[in-house]
């Protein structure tokens, strides 16, 4: 693959004495949706959180190997942690709105980095909420607490909040698992619209969802990448026995 957005080489990760990620090598293409599937506890979420270094916040984590974004090392570097995280935002399993108003949730990322003047915030927030298809629903109550929104709305708010800091990469950890079918559909649609401009890496448990939106698929098992390829190939012609078993649902 020429010019991968994220390049992972020989990544190993231990938490205390447990070997969570084993020799991961991956090249994730730019401006596509790459979906990570695999049984629970196989290291999908850990891999995702290693990419924007959230694993730094856990105690007892040791990693080796390298991860680069646009050719710049992110794993073995002391500086620029906040920049790395702004570049690769995370959408978590359940929406976690910050304890503030709807407006301030979206403006948070802009305010903390001190990049925006107050007067420039409002049009930017409106633009972001429109991008997340939430504007029409919240435009009359921007100052209400974010917790007053429905779960589906909160997840779209989290998306708008993440987009505010101009990331290149959206890391999504089962972003629809807590949502009703309609809200899930809204998020999937958004991802497909956004995939032209953003590199999206999504963990999911739902095979049908992966079939619907994936451009590339990674199959993980017990901390290893078993198979990686374009969605078409992956689903129509899986190479590895374990992948075949997982896809046909006879996995144990």
């Amino acid at each position, binding site marked *: 693959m020429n010019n991968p957005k994220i390049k992972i080489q020989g990544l190993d990760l231990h938490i205390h004495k447990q070997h969570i990620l084993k020799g991961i090598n991956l090249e994730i293409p730019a401006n596509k949706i790459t979906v990570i599937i695999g049984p629970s506890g196989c290291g999908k979420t850990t891999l995702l*959180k290693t990419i*924007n270094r*959230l694993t730094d*916040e856990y*105690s007892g984590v040791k990693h080796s190997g390298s991860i680069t974004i646009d050719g710049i090392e992110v794993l073995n570097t002391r500086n620029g942690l*906040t*920049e790395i*995280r*702004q570049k690769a*935002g*995370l959408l*978590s*399993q*359940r929406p*976690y709105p*910050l*304890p*503030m*108003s709807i407006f301030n949730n979206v403006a*948070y*990322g802009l305010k*903390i*980095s001190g990049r925006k003047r107050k007067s420039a915030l409002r049009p930017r927030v409106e633009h972001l909420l429109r991008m997340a298809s939430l504007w029409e629903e919240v435009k009359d109550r921007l100052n209400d*607490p974010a*917790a007053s929104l429905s779960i589906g709305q909160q997840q779209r708010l*989290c998306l708008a*909040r*993440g987009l*505010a*800091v101009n990331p290149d990469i959206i*890391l999504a950890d089962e972003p629809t698992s807590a949502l009703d079918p309609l809200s899930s559909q809204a998020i999937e649609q958004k991802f497909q619209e956004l995939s032209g401009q953003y590199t999206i890496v999504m963990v999911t448990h739902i095979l049908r969802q992966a079939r619907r939106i994936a451009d590339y698929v990674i199959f993980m098992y017990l901390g290893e990448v078993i198979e990686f390829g374009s969605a078409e190939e992956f689903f129509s012609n899986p190479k590895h026995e374990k992948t075949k078993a997982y896809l046909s649902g006879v996995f144990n």
Partner: protein
Amino acid sequence: MRFSKRKILDLLSAYWMYAGIALVVILFGFIGVVLFIKASPVFYEQSVSDILFSDDWKPLSGKFGMLAFIISSLYITLIAVAISAPVCLLAAIFLTQYADRRLLTLMQPVIDILAGLPSVIYGVWGIIVIVPFVSDVIAPAFGRETNGYTILSAGLVLAVMIIPFMLNIMIEVLRSVPTDLKEASLSLGATYWQTIKYVVVKKSFPGIASAIGLGVSRAFGETIAVLMVAGNVTRVPENVFQPGYPLPALIANNYGEMMSIPLYDSALMLAALVLFVVVIFFNLIARSSIIRLEKYS
């Protein structure tokens, strides 16, 4: 109708719980009513505003102005909370957000023991350590002379006393902030400190406010330790280097002693009633502010 043993037990356990709740509510009302009835004779002699806002305390001539005691109590409580609240908040943030988890496990029993120490021990410690410290070090530094039995000493002892109590609540509150919420903020490029300040503390604010509110209630009502170091002089204190005479100390020192003076026991009951009302008042304020703040977190 036939009852099986199972159903009878079920019924009994439900009523038993109702009885428990009823007892708590009745006891609460009972204390308030008894205090009021016992205190009421004073109201025939003096107006409520005279009692609360006059500093004329001459029981022998039937004058029961309690301002000196009320001001002393407020002063001491204010000092105690002003010192302990920020200390507790910072300690709780450090223990829950920065320190190794093992340190918290190590500290927890220490804090529990400190919270459970009898207050008379704090009083003795205050006399041995705080009183000389105030008279020899702090007061001279401000150009004052005192024997050390002052409002400030009482405030300091009380601060030390309520720190473990408040710290325990704040640790619980801060610990309950979900990791994913912190990660959401970090993922947006916030630094760790920004995340603590804008997300963790903000999310926990109702809990922090209630911890402080409960600390105030506890400080206001604390009797023995304060009585031992406050000096107990009936005068409205002008500064922290003067002795004070807080309400609980007044009741504890005099009840059962000066009962030959007419109306004296009523006046003491009134002091108790004032304490009772103030503690309820602070609790209500803490709770209503929690309800209002919770909307935003």
